[in-house]
């Protein structure tokens, strides 16, 4: 109730701050050739030396003094545009920007480039264009968003082929991945070799590592907001590519010219081409499908419908077959209540499912799990004047967790087995106020989130409320004693959590090429992925917070210095962050998580921390472009016992997280050899990941058993590799010809066998003899891809 008053008060405050001598200018900025809305295009008014950028729907609103004004609109890769006019009353201007041709790019080098990285009140963000992703050398030539962002500061992964990514010491499950607002629960194709985001179908990828805006919530470490293209509203066209792993095709065009368009993109990998499987009955492939359509009723009302459907299938002859995939559908309505009040209403459905068929004769069964989310939200942006803006909104989710149902197939006599389903409602409301005081911009926001875990479910009651107890005699954790069960009826509240999540960003512009920024965010996460494999797999179970697992809370502060050189040709930043995590969980030794209805008996909780320094230098223009990124960091957690005498994990001391890398360096460069020949190169160096080595061996059950020491107390050898790729653009035969190109790549050119893991096994042929082995994924790997547009 207090909260509601607060919102009203703030709204009132921004109302009275209205300025009388100014008029507002608003509108959409679009690509002149495709009609795509441009996200983050800069609008700058010379008279007041101030500007704004378009929002994620390409909309801007802004105020200028009454009278003659010059507005300059700039966007990377587009010709700058200037409007000179006498502004007497509020007006709407829609602007179509022309993509710059290659010759013009040379001109822009000497011209003035936007310095949004300096002036914009946000830090710890990463924006990467699909075009850049496609020009980077990649494993087997397959351009991949999640592999590409790992070349940027603060982003790591648990090795080649590990699924997902880690942001500033956060686990893979702490990234909110949104594809047109739909939540993607598993970002991996082929268990992590590739990601589910098709670079052809997206136009904007933005990752927040810190200073996360109040409108986002639900995950503790980062937000990756991916926006799909709307589809060309001017003419029918498309592109296609053929590589070693997959083929992709995209078709887009107007349905009603300038009013409605569609986009259809598909990717499919070629069966088992690269799995050297002996048996012809084996299948392994993925595909994904992106669809989007929109209709502009007027400049005030637009409706978008978008969908993503992806699937991996893996089948081994008559042994088993499994498949998993994400499906999301988003219906959005953009509405302008006035030039100053922009609103977006979304209804989103998301379903992640995993299915396994065991086909072993006699015990055929199917195991199926799902996580289904229904999400409704409303977001508003109210622009009061160029010194005051406010964003607010509400968000409601209904989530059903179905961790697994096992049922017999093909007439087998396997017993039906059900893991308990869980139900939850997640509610949130936020408000965020932007204010400018001369060179200082402040964005102060807060998000209120609530999570209600609901029945129908039976919850165990444990002696002393301890689901897990320490047996000091045997030196191990054991299940607590169940003293009863409480059955909750459908919809009945089992647990209730709520959190206030403050967000703050401050930018002080020292001059047009230098600024200092600081941010703070608190994030609450009400579901965690419980995994006891080295990297998440599709089988891992998303588990909601509840009576035994508390919500994960993360507080992060970050400080940064941003500086551009040579007329913004070079942009550089230094960021320092510190993060604290509460209620992190880890499994105890020997935990059985897959078919366990009572995960609470296998988990301990504790706290985590991550500290890091990120350096980034990027060259934006010229024949040579690219960046250098370096991160110095430490990410660790501490899991103490339930009582003070329990050892917890690693005797209750801090230990490194699986993906912790002290040094992480990437050098990425793209060089234009001639108008049609481009060379790209990457160099990556990182400290080896934590691992656990045995301290000794013993014999048991006729086998040699390694006796392991403290968790993650050893390190793999350092990781480094060098990749190159060459792009040859074909000649365009006519203006309509979209062009075609060949991309040749060589990954890991000096063939370093970077260890993914080091594991210890006894010889099968010489029992009693043991060895340490490293497994590695890619030695030197050539690739070739052909792309064309039409």
């Amino acid at each position: 109730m207090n909260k509601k008053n607060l919102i009203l008060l703030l709204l009132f405050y921004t109302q009275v701050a209205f300025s009388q001598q100014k008029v507002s200018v608003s509108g959409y900025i679009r690509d002149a050739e495709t009609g795509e809305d441009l996200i983050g295009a800069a609008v700058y008014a010379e008279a007041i030396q101030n500007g704004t950028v378009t929002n994620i729907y390409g909309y801007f609103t802004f105020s200028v003094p009454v009278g003659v004004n010059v507005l300059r609109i700039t966007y990377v890769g587009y010709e700058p545009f200037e409007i000179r006019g006498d502004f007497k009353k509020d007006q709407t201007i829609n602007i179509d920007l022309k993509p710059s041709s290659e010759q013009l790019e040379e001109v822009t080098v000497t011209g003035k480039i936007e310095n949004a990285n300096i002036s914009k009140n946000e830090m710890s963000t990463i924006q990467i264009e699909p075009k850049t992703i496609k020009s980077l050398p990649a494993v087997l030539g397959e351009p991949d968003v999640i592999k590409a962002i790992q070349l940027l500061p603060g982003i790591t992964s648990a090795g080649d082929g590990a699924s997902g990514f880690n942001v500033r010491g956060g686990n893979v499950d702490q990234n909110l991945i949104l594809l047109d607002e739909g939540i993607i629960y598993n970002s991996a194709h082929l268990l992590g070799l590739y990601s589910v985001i098709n670079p052809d179908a997206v136009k904007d990828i933005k990752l927040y590592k810190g200073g996360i805006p109040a409108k986002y919530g639900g995950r503790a470490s980062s937000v990756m907001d991916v926006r799909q293209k709307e589809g060309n509203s001017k003419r029918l066209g498309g592109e296609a590519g053929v590589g070693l792993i997959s083929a992709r095709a995209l078709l887009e065009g107007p349905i009603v010219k300038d009013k409605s368009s569609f986009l259809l993109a598909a990717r499919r990998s070629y069966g088992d081409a690269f799995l050297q499987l002996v048996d012809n009955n084996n299948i392994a492939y993925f595909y994904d499908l992106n669809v989007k359509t929109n209709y502009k009723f007027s400049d005030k009302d637009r409706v978008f419908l978008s969908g993503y459907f992806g699937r991996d299938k893996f089948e081994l002859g008559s042994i088993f077959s499994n498949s998993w995939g994400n499906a999301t559908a988003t219906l959005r309505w953009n509405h302008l209540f006035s030039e100053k009040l922009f609103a977006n209403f979304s209804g989103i459905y998301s379903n992640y499912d995993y299915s396994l068929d065991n086909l072993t004769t006699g015990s055929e069964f199917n195991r199926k799990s799902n996580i289904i989310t229904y999400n409704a939200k409303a977001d508003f942006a109210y622009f009061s004047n160029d010194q005051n803006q406010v964003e607010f909104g509400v968000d409601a989710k209904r989530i059903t967790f179905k961790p697994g149902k096992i049922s017999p197939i093909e007439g087998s006599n396997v017993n039906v087995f059900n893991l308990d389903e869980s139900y939850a409602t997640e509610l949130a409301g936020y408000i965020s106020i932007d204010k400018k005081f001369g060179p200082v911009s402040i964005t102060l926001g807060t998000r209120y989130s609530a999570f209600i875990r609901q029945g129908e479910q039976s919850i165990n009651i444990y002696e002393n409320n301890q689901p897990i107890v320490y047996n000091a005699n045997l030196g191990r954790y054991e299940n607590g004693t169940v003293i009863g069960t409480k059955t909750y009826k459908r919809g009945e509240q089992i647990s209730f959590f709520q959190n206030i999540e403050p967000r703050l960003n401050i930018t002080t512009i020292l001059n047009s090429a230098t600024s200092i920024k600081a941010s703070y965010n608190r994030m609450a996460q009400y579901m965690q992925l419980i995994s006891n494999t080295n990297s998440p797999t599709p089988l891992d179970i998303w588990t909601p917070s509840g009576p035994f697992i508390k919500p994960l809370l993360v507080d992060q502060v970050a400080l940064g210095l941003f500086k551009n050189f040579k007329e913004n040709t070079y942009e550089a930043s230094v960021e320092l962050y510190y993060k604290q995590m509460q209620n992190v969980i880890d499994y105890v030794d020997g935990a059985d998580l897959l078919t366990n209805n009572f995960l609470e008996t296998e988990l301990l909780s504790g706290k985590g921390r991550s500290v890091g320094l990120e350096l980034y230098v990027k060259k934006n223009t010229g024949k040579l472009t690219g960046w250098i990124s370096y991160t110095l960091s430490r990410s660790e957690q501490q899991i103490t016992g339930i009582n003070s005498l329990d050892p917890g994990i690693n005797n209750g001391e801090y230990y490194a997280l699986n993906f912790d890398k002290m040094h992480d360096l990437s050098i990425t460069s793209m060089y234009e050899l001639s108008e049609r020949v481009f060379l790209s190169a990457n160099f990556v160096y990182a400290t080896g990941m934590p691992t656990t080595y045995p301290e000794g061996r013993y014999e048991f059950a006729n086998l040699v058993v390694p006796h392991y020491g403290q968790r993650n107390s050893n390190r793999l050898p350092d990781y480094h590799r060098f990749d190159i790729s060459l792009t040859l653009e074909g000649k365009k035969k006519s203006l309509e010809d979209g062009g075609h190109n060949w991309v040749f790549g060589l990954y890991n050119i000096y063939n370093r066998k970077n260890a993914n893991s080091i594991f210890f096994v006894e010889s099968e042929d010489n029992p009693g003899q043991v060895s340490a082995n490293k497994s590695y994924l890619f030695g030197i790997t050539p690739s070739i891809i052909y792309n064309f547009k039409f």
Partner: protein
Amino acid sequence: MKISVYIILLFFLFISCEQEIDLALNEPDNRLVVEARLELPINVKTTDQFVKLTRINNYFDNDASTGVTDASVNLTDERGIEHPYFLVEGKEGVYKLSGFIPKRGGKYILNIYWNDAHYQASETVVDVPSIDSVYQIFEAENTFEDGGLKLAIDFTDPEGQSNFYFWELYVNNENILRVDSGNSNNVVASDDLFNGQTIRGYFPNEERVFEPGEEVMVKQIGLSEAAFDFYFQIFEQTGQTGSFIDVPPSKINGNIVNLTDNENYALGYFSASQTDTKLYVIQDDVER
């Protein structure tokens, strides 16, 4: 079932490569390792009981002798009577209690005195159903297994109770178990998915291809849930494949308590099990 799930992910083996490497490892503390099982064979009047005591050793020391020969071992029965074990000549670290038959459901305590410490473990004898039949099946080669003659069994799981199984196969009195990532799948089983049913064509060791004429002894062993967890972990930890889906390496805690100093823990397990043994001689594969 947790198994099949595990198999899936062997997927990674197809695209990853392996290389043996040299590595310097820390030296272990001097720790006792206990491998002991009190057996109650079905339909057998008398049997000998064995305990094997070894020491933990440097991981790469392939040839060191690790048997512990200077311990004193006894078994306390339910009436508090102590039955001593004696070191077996020529078998380093093996201790024998001759002609002892435990009671069904009886609780027994194993005591070991070594290096000024008293180690103890207690376990209750766990029932096991008998093996219905033993026979051979020709299995075609597949992605995970060599093709050939495999040994299969039928058994009937008792209804309305949780049962845990462990199988040992012997050829010429030698345990034929070898390291394999599938062991956690075959060599032990829980009746989660087949409670109360008759299981037909179960491979207690799917790795081993048998030759006609080999005489195989199959021993079906009942485990407590804790013992099953222990064996399962032993098989998981010895079956690492180097892929991302391996369970993370971890210490395996058994049920041996050091009563003198619980920091100086011992490794291994003392189980008490009803067992059923059947013999089978592999035949020429006439059906093919």
